């Protein structure tokens, strides 16, 4: 194909998306940047430009670094464990031959994702309480003392567990669909070659699945980075600040302080931070290449 047709076709295909996102994303994004550089005086009813004042305030607040750290901690742990669990689910269901049990198990596994996060978080809140708490009941059986978990220093980790519970079906759906797409011929070939189950998985299936795995991981990381519902309903930022992430403080600044401008600044920070990290990583690898 000629070069020109090549590019032309590519952009034609992209046209609907670009148009759509231009209207519904680029423009609001621009408004977001604009707001983050302003302040609103409610008495005088004017919005005026203040430059980087919001950002300076954010960085001068010592809590901000805690927020950033906790956001990354949350993302790291949750993505890692969700991925392993989701993959395990997919392999488990894939290994089941009976169609009935297969469908049943798929429904059971996907259920936690179908519960509204508000409802799910409320359930876990109850389960972790002293009075209603089944979890305390079970832990007592194992010899761990009863405690009001959402008030303890471990509150943040319990929220992570809830998030993993709620969103590992996401990974499961993607990986299971990918497993189903595996060409039967390759599987048969490997079996003829005498591979055992584990070897089959390690050397044949996983390499083929790698692109899908990367996609699933990336999507899950981005989603978890923005995780809000479970944390907010379960601890509201935790005792003190111990479970406040960037998203939580963005929400609080907007919805409770009614300071949409500073909240936009937090939003810009939330978006720019990973970009900044990725760029520095890219620059670093490029520099290393030249060495």
């Amino acid at each position: 194909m000629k070069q020109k047709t090549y590019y032309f076709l590519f952009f034609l295909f992209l046209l609907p998306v670009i148009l759509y996102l231009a209207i519904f994303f680029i423009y609001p994004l621009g408004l977001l940047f604009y707001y983050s550089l302003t302040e609103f005086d409610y008495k005088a009813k004017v919005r005026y430009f203040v430059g980087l004042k919001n950002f300076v305030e954010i960085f001068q607040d010592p809590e901000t670094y805690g927020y950033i750290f906790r956001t990354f901690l949350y993302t790291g742990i949750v993505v890692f464990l969700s991925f392993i669990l989701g993959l395990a689910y997919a392999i488990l269901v894939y290994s089941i031959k009976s169609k009935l049990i297969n469908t049943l198990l798929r429904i059971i596994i996907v259920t936690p994702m179908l519960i509204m996060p508000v409802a799910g978080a409320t359930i876990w809140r109850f389960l972790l309480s002293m009075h209603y708490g089944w979890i305390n009941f079970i832990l007592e059986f194992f010899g761990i003392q009863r405690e009001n978990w959402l008030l303890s220093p471990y509150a943040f980790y319990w929220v992570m567990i809830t998030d993993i519970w709620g969103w590992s079906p996401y990974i499961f759906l993607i990986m299971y669909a990918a497993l189903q797409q595996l060409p039967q011929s390759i599987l048969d070939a490997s079996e003829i070659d005498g591979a055992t189950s584990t070897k089959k998985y390690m050397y044949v299936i996983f390499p083929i699945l790698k692109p899908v795995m990367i996609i699933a991981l990336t999507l899950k990381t981005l989603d978890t980075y923005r995780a809000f519902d479970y944390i907010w309903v379960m601890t509201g930022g935790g005792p003190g600040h111990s479970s406040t992430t960037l998203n939580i403080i963005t929400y609080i600044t907007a919805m409770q302080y009614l300071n949409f401008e500073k909240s936009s600044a937090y939003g810009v920070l939330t978006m720019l931070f990973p970009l900044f990290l990725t760029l520095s990583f890219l620059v670093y690898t490029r520099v290393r290449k030249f060495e």
Partner: protein
Amino acid sequence: MNKYFKNFSIFIFSILVSVWSWFPLIWFLMVSITGPGGIPTKISLPSYITFDPYIHVIFGGYSGGYFLKSVIPSILDSLIIAVMCSFLTIIISVLPAYAFSRFNFMLSKTIYNGLLIVRMIPFVTLVAPYFVMFNNLKLIDTYHGLIFAITTLQIPPAIWIMRGFFDSIPKEIEEQAMIDGAPLIKRLFLILIPLIMPGISVAASLTFIFSYIHYILYSILSRGAVNPISIRIVTFIQEGIVMWNEMAATTILSMIPMFLFLLFLGKYFIKGITMGAVKG
């Protein structure tokens, strides 16, 4: 011996997975069939059983002095939004996914990765800009307004997932069709897309679920005429009374359409596989 061990461990893991996934839901189920003060505190059935929460929530009724409207219209609202959103997302995302998969040069890579940004924005920061924009476009409190808003956030993952599936189709199939003389569009629609069906149903399922359970943007962009069920559930948590029983009943009711939708899409899974098997 190995086979029995394998079957046994599969059995055990299935049980563990089922318990892990479902025990919170069972708890909520029990909350939904009891009344105030009846919520179980030990691992047991609630102290008294009544189906009042379901009756109040489906048909409307008084609970603790407050009149509840039926939640069925809200579930329908959420369904309309979620279905239209899946539909719209898939339509908009299929071609770009193909484009990214087949045309893999520098600019395309940049745009592809640039879609990341859409997925990185916290919903809350979109609230004020969307509000202003939608208000000016008179899209507030309409079905299409909410659909457009939520579709924006679902497009990047749909593109990414479908691109991944396009990627895993060997180039030989497409080349074979090209040699057979099929033009691009025919190739795309008659061959590749049916092969992608599992990917499309995954993308559609995920989009459906996300738009069904979403809350923040809906609450800002609706003003009483459109009532998604996710907002309805949140309104059960009030400053004063919290209606746990009714909230549990509503949650369980709201999950039924999702189950049905996923089962329906599940059929496509199977269809896609058999088609793939025939082709490949």
